[in-house]
């Protein structure tokens, strides 16, 4: 299993380099000039020029790219143009808030979404199923920022149950995490429902029934375990979308998270901050994807057996047709 994780970590490095390259390209092609913005016409032309040289804006593209990587390896994520404080400390101070918001809402989404999905799948031709489909469609179609405003208006302003913001007390977290969780709860519910329906039609479920198992046991022991595995896969994707979605929520609920920080940095071209926050958010996303893959490999014996005890047990005899005879067998597994 360690070999599997090792291989995946190695694969993350090119991706990181790719991200830095992508963001670097964005910044170079953009119009507008950060130094002018930063100086606010206080500095004369030559001073701005000299500042640009000092900030390395004049170096050729590739040199800047290599320098930036060197800095990162030394842990120096550069200083913010606007606040002149090292970017790393600012990010690290804001990072936990974002992480907390996203993971709480994801946990909520899983806790609510999966049971609803199962319930809908097991009552297929009833009104309960149709209701859940329509409700899920509504949640997915709802603009989350607008829904957040509505909830603030209802709960915070009118009913005064939950404060619109304030991250120190746990009650301040209820509104943001619930609203963010809503959309992903719908996605998870739909995915669980379709997986359950597909699994229930499989032969091994009929075999389980023919063994004399009660329907409830068939559903929760055999069907659910097989249906949940693909749901783990999309949790990784949803985490990515939640990271993106949370940026706006942090603005609305004034949570000092990394998302809000990135948006403000973007609005006034604070390149080092943009670079580092995009990098860190993407790294977080990649790490989560890795964790999801590891969990997936642990839970699904078909994949686990490829990585553990490969040598202990003799290779299973190959009896199916030889590989589908394409011109050349594709490397890597189909995505």
């Amino acid at each position: 299993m360690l070999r599997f994780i090792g291989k995946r970590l190695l694969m993350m490095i090119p991706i990181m380099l790719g991200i830095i390259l992508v963001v670097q390209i964005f910044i170079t092609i953009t119009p507008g000039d950060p130094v002018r913005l930063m100086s606010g016409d206080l500095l004369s032309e030559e001073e701005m020029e000299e500042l640009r040289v000092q900030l390395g804006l004049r170096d050729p593209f590739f040199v800047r790219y290599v320098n930036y990587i060197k800095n990162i390896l030394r842990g120096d994520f550069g200083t913010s143009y606007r606040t002149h404080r090292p970017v790393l400390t600012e990010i690290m101070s804001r990072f936990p808030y974002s992480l907390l918001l996203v993971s709480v809402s994801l946990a909520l989404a899983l806790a609510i979404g999966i049971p609803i999905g199962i319930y809908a799948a097991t009552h297929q031709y009833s009104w309960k199923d149709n209701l859940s489909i329509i409700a899920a469609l509504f949640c997915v179609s709802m603009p989350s920022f607008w829904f957040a405003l509505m909830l603030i208006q209802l709960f915070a302003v009118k009913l005064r149950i939950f404060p619109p913001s304030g991250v120190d007390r746990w009650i301040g977290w209820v509104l943001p995490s619930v609203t963010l969780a809503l959309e992903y709860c719908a996605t998870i519910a739909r995915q669980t429902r379709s997986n359950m329906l597909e699994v229930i039609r499989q032969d091994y479920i009929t075999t389980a029934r023919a063994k004399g198992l009660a329907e409830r046991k068939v559903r929760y022991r055999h069907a659910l375990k097989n249906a949940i595995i693909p749901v783990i896969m999309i949790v990784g994707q949803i985490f990515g979308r939640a990271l993106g979605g949370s940026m706006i929520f942090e603005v609305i609920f004034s949570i000092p998270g990394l998302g809000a920080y990135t948006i403000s940095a973007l609005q006034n071209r604070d390149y080092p901050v943009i670079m580092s926050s995009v990098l860190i958010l993407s790294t977080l996303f990649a790490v989560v994807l890795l964790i999801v893959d590891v969990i997936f490999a642990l839970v699904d014996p078909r994949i686990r057996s490829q990585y553990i005890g490969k040598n202990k047990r003799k290779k299973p005899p190959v009896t199916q047709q030889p590989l589908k005879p394409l011109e050349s067998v594709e490397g890597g597994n189909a995505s």
Partner: protein
Amino acid sequence: MPPLLEVKNLKKYFNTKGGMLHAVDDISFTLDAGKTLGVVGESGCGKTTLGRTILHLLDVTSGQILFEGRDITYPKKKELMKLREDMQIIFQDPYSSLDPRQSVKETIMEPLLIQGKLSKAECEKKAKELMDTVGLAARFENAHPHELDGGRRQRIGIARALALGPKFIVCDEPVSALDVSIQAQIINLLLDLQESLGIAYMFVTHDLSVVKYISNDIMVMYLGQMVEKASSDELFANPIHPYTQALLSAIPIPDIHNKTKRIILKGELTSPINPKPGCRFRPRCIYATEECEQPQVLTEPLPNHFVACCKCSELLNNRRNTQ
């Protein structure tokens, strides 16, 4: 007159993650015009790959293929196009071998339209004729494959194969997916076509009673190697290779009286990836000795009866004294 099709030491290997997969390993045979060669073997023995390699759907690893005396092992594009008018294929799965978006007429007309010799009207007329020859009623012209049953779909596949007037058709298990009564209709159709159009068939199947009925010669394959080849009556009358004997004894015959003593093979198929040289049936063969480690030579103990087993003379003797 050179035979219609001659294959010499044909090999087809796939490189897979686990190593080199020997799908087809050193197969040689000849096939005359209007005759049928049955290729029999269990799943994974490479019979389907052999068919597709001869038709150049897969490129040849090594060996030689002669068609009417011409060497067509590595054809150029032009030559391959001409070749495709003489060699065609009928698939096993009637559901996945027809484009669901095309109607029956369009499917049959496609090869003619691509060939471009006939005008659209002539193509349509030829398509109607072909539907008639394969026993498809004209009213199905605009039907789509999902509206028809397995038997009719297979007839569309046959009509498409006949469109360019081929001399040789590879039938890749054409009847295994069909019911018994429909299977008989398709087999009769294939036999009629062979008689009227003089087409040679390479009939690939795992169903031994079908292959005996339809083929003149039969070739038995095991894990990519040819183990035995003989005329169909000769092969069923006195099989020599241990695997052929086990295969024939394993067929459930629909006759309750002579419940023959079955030879039950032990063990499972070994892996064709990076196989050791020599006979691949060795792990499951009761007569196996060290000699079987060396590559087996194809001998001809009886006229037109080839066996790839070093023990064949010995097997023949104790067969003779038991009779």
